[in-house]
Each structure stands twice: as C-alpha cells, then as structure tokens.
C-alpha cells in the first residue's frame, strides 16, 4: 500500500520534471526559462525524494528515510536561491528581456547597481595606478 502511494507521488514528480524541462527548451528568454524550469524541477525532485522516503518508512529503512527528507528540505531551500542569484546576475550583465514582456520592475535598481559597480571599478583602477 505504502509502495503504491510512493509510486504515485514519484510519477507526479516525474511529470513535473519533464514539463519543467520542456519549458526550459521552449520558452523565449532567460527569465521565463529560469522561472518555469526552477519551480517545476524543484517541486518534482522534492516529490521524488518524498516518494523514496515514504517507501523507506514502510520498508522500514530509517536511515534512508531521514536522509531523503533532509535532502528534500535542502533542495527546497537552495534551488530558488540559486535561480534568483543567476537571474540577478543575468540582468546586471545586460541580458535583454523578451520583446513581448509587458513590465520591467527592476530597471531603477539595476541602473543603481550598475552605477555603483562603475564607481567601484574606477576606484580599483586608481588604486592600482597609485600602487
């Protein structure tokens, strides 16, 4: 019974993984791809881990179950942080939005960060020149 539940959960997780990767291939720019793929694949992998944990609880194989839950919590915490950092880096490095995008709320803050970086960069150059 527990094994059947675990197989259902893993099947749904695999569907999420597959659709997330289809989104990674089909969508038009970096930001769309990152949001589709990150959300779907994070949830899908967490569901696979939960399925393995449920099956290990029924087995019972306690160390495997606890490690699987730990790994699911870790993936759930770190994957959105990594995707956010990559998208921020993409924006600051100057990747354009898709021409069909309707709003860009990060314009002012992005300009501010770029100006700060330009000032820091010139400061570094002066330092190396005086040294």
């Amino acid at each position, binding site marked *: 019974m527990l094994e059947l539940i675990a*197989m259902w959960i*893993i*099947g749904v*997780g*695999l569907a999420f*993984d*597959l659709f*997330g*990767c*289809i989104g*990674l*291939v089909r969508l038009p720019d*970096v930001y769309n*791809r*990152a949001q589709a*793929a*990150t959300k779907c*694949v*994070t949830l*899908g*992998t967490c569901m*696979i*881990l939960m399925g*393995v944990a449920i*099956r*290990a609880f029924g087995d019972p*194989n306690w*160390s*495997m179950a606890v*490690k*699987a839950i*730990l*790994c699911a919590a*870790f*993936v759930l915490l*770190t*994957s959105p*942080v*990594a*995707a956010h*950092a*990559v*998208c*921020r*880096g*993409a924006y*600051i*490095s100057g*990747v354009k939005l898709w021409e069909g995008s309707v709003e860009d709320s990060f314009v002012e803050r992005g300009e501010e960060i770029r100006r700060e*970086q330009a000032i820091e960069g010139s400061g570094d150059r002066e330092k190396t020149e005086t040294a």
Partner: protein
Amino acid sequence: MSLFIQISLAVLTLSSAMCLYRVGRGPTAPDRTVAIDILGTLVVGFCCLMAWRTGRDYYITIAIAWALISFIGTLALAKYLEGRSYDA
C-alpha cells in the same frame, strides 16, 4: 516494479537531454548557467531512484553532496555573471 523504475529513469534521461540541448544551444551565458543548475537538481532525483532500485542508502548521501556542490557552483557562476570579484 522494476518496469516502473526503468520508465522513471528513462523520463529523467529525456529531461536531462533537454537540459543538455539548452546548455549547447543557449544563446547567452545565463541560459547555460540555468540549464546546468537544473541538470544538477535532476541528478539528485536520479540518485534517489537508484537508491530505490538497489536498496542501498549511500546513494542518497551522494545526492545530498551533489545538491550542495551544485548550489555552490551555481552561486559562483552567478557572481561571475554579475561582474564582481569572488570575495566581494
């Protein structure tokens, strides 16, 4: 049972192939970085299915280590994209 695991591994392999397509094709560097991050998360799921198949729990230890290394690598690539030095 065994068939279920084999089909699951095939689906994950197909997803990984799509990620590799984006790594090779992606027009900009952030595209490739996102695809590599997603590939790392898929490998975690792959390791868990191998743990189910073989019944050995060290595969999940490998999955935890892989998730950690993948996270740190993606953060380093993101800081590189942002144009700052690694210690700032």
